[in-house]
């Protein structure tokens, strides 16, 4: 035995240290958040999950915050796969193979899952050249899968193009495609494809913006990125700003509504009090919702898109001192509007009923045993369905 002590020592060091390490790491992974109700009904947070990022000290982690449990997202099986796509992969493993994790390229309802892939290397093409979108269609009912290409021709030379939204209406796929033109301009197209015939029905430009130094125009979409389902309305804005100025100065901004059923585009005017540089606009079904923070209150603005009218704003006083002065997290989902904001000590969570214009829940969200200041970026609010 004496002769073997070096070997035994080395093996001992390896086993002990590596075990200690993995035990330590496993134990370090516990986070806990508490929801303390101020008003409303607890049932609204019982099944709520907030998917987001947490910063504490210099430490960043992806977490799913729930009332009973907060999960640290680093399951190795899904490394680098956004949460939204984990479910899709679990349910449609083969269909999802090799597909990008960009929610704008997917449409999903009860009967089908549609994926569209943009043409590659479009900067090599010239005006008049043809390019194609590749469609991958999963019929959930028949469990049948079809792949086909749709050809189109370039009107102008482009650098690249991206699909910003995909919706299926009555067996017609409608794509909102943004062309980044060779000359710096940008165009929004609505491309309509007949799913049965697998042919283009129409391709129409609905918006052209010009970029000319120092003035630039930006296109922005307010529909929820994570929403893969059917949406009748799509809202976007064009923002003109001066790139020379240090603080981005908005010169003008126009909001427009696209009715995906009729393909009509109508302008949308903001009500008094809602600034054009508001960061929080969200489309949820028939409503466009935006929030604004003052030193004392939270203001919620609602627009009934179908009726084309703004409803009375809702105001709720802050339960804590509002120090951050910036609106942090808002999200519209399933008829509810979520606001999560950093207050003096903790975060305040407010849940509104969009249609009724009432507050359903208000409470404090705080990290248990937080030794240092922390910050939450919420990417998505969703209700757990088990």
């Amino acid at each position, binding site marked *: 035995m004496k002769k073997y002590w070096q070997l035994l020592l080395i093996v001992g*060091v390896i086993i002990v240290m590596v075990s200690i390490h993995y035990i330590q790491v496993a134990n*370090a*992974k516990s986070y806990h958040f508490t929801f303390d109700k101020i008003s409303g009904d607890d049932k609204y947070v019982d099944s709520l999950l907030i998917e987001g990022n947490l910063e504490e000290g210099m430490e960043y982690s992806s977490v799913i915050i729930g009332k009973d449990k907060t999960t640290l997202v680093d399951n190795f099986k899904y490394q680098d796969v956004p949460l939204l796509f984990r479910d899709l992969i679990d349910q449609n493993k083969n269909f999802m193979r090799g597909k990008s994790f960009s929610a704008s390229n997917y449409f999903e309802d009860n009967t089908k899952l549609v994926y569209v892939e943009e043409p590659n290397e479009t900067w090599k093409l010239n005006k008049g050249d043809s390019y194609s979108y590749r469609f991958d269609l999963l019929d959930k009912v028949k469990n049948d899968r079809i792949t086909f290409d749709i050809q189109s021709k370039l009107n102008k030379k482009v650098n690249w193009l991206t699909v910003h939204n995909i919706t299926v209406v009555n067996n017609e796929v409608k794509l909102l495609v943004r062309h980044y033109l060779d000359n710096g301009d940008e165009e929004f197209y609505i491309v309509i494809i007949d799913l049965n015939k697998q042919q283009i029905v129409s391709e129409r430009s609905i918006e052209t913006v010009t970029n000319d130094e120092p003035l630039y125009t930006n296109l922005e979409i307010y529909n929820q990125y994570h929403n893969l389902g059917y949406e009748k309305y799509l809202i976007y804005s064009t923002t003109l700003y001066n790139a020379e100025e240090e603080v981005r100065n908005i010169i003008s901004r126009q909001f427009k509504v696209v009715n995906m059923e009729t393909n009509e585009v109508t302008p949308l005017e903001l009500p008094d009090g809602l600034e054009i540089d508001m960061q929080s606009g969200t489309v949820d079904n028939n409503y466009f919702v935006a929030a604004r923070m003052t030193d004392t209150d939270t203001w919620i603005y609602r627009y009934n898109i179908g009726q084309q009218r703004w409803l009375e704003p809702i105001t709720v006083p802050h339960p804590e001192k509002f120090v951050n002065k910036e609106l942090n997290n808002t999200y519209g989902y399933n008829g509810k509007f979520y606001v999560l904001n950093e207050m003096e000590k903790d975060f305040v969570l407010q849940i509104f009923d969009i249609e009724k214009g009432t507050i359903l829940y208000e409470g404090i969200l705080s990290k248990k045993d937080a030794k240092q200041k922390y910050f939450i970026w919420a990417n998505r609010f969703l209700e757990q369905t088990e």
Partner: protein
Amino acid sequence: MNEYFKLVNFEVRRFSKLFLTLIVAVTVVQIIGAFMTSFNFMERVETTMAQKQLGESEYVLEYGAYNFQNFIFSEYFILSIVFAATILVIYVFFIWYRDWLGKSSFIYRLLMLPTARRNIYFAKLTAILLFVLCLVGVQIALIEVVQQIIHGIIPDQLRVDQSKAYIYSFDVLSFLYPKTPLLFILLYGLGATVVAVVFTAILFERSYHLKGILLGAIYIIISILVIAIPVIIQDITGYLYLNEIIGLTAVTSILTLGVALYLADYLLKRKINV
């Protein structure tokens, strides 16, 4: 089996003095690094605070607090790791060539031992793996020591505390210590495969001399390509999921390891030349 353990023990004892020196060197450099980065930080804090008349909390707000990355990215830490890795990579070759070169020809004795010759190969492979893992283990303890030193020098207000899981999820440390024990085993299994391939290439050279260098080089390239098949497939098709890539890489590695062992056994039995 018994002979194999004896040979492993023999290989470990043979390198133990140099290995101990290596561990001491790495430890000393990192401890010096812990002191130096902490003292440098404190000096910077004190001069800046004096010049600009800032309080500690204001300093932290403006310039940031000390975090463990200050140490991880310091030359002390990086150089100590690179140094240890280099020594071990050199030893992967030297563990064979030392038996051929020099005044004595120990390889005569090794090959004339009444044991299967592949045990010599396994023992050398095991020894290398043990040295690597031992350093990896010692580094875990060192991180703890370094943290204690930093805690002793830098006051709480000027320092951000990070959890163990977080510290180990970046850069060199995230590579050396994968997230789960399974990944740890897979990583070092892959490492062992690569060492085995290099060993077999060395045996090619020892068996066929000049021609063997060419054979060995070709053999190494083919082996690496085989191991990388899943990654290459992924690069071209994007078809696989991460866990599938890891699983397939484990399969191709085991295959490569099998071939390396088979060839080594053949070369040692039939082709080796002393």
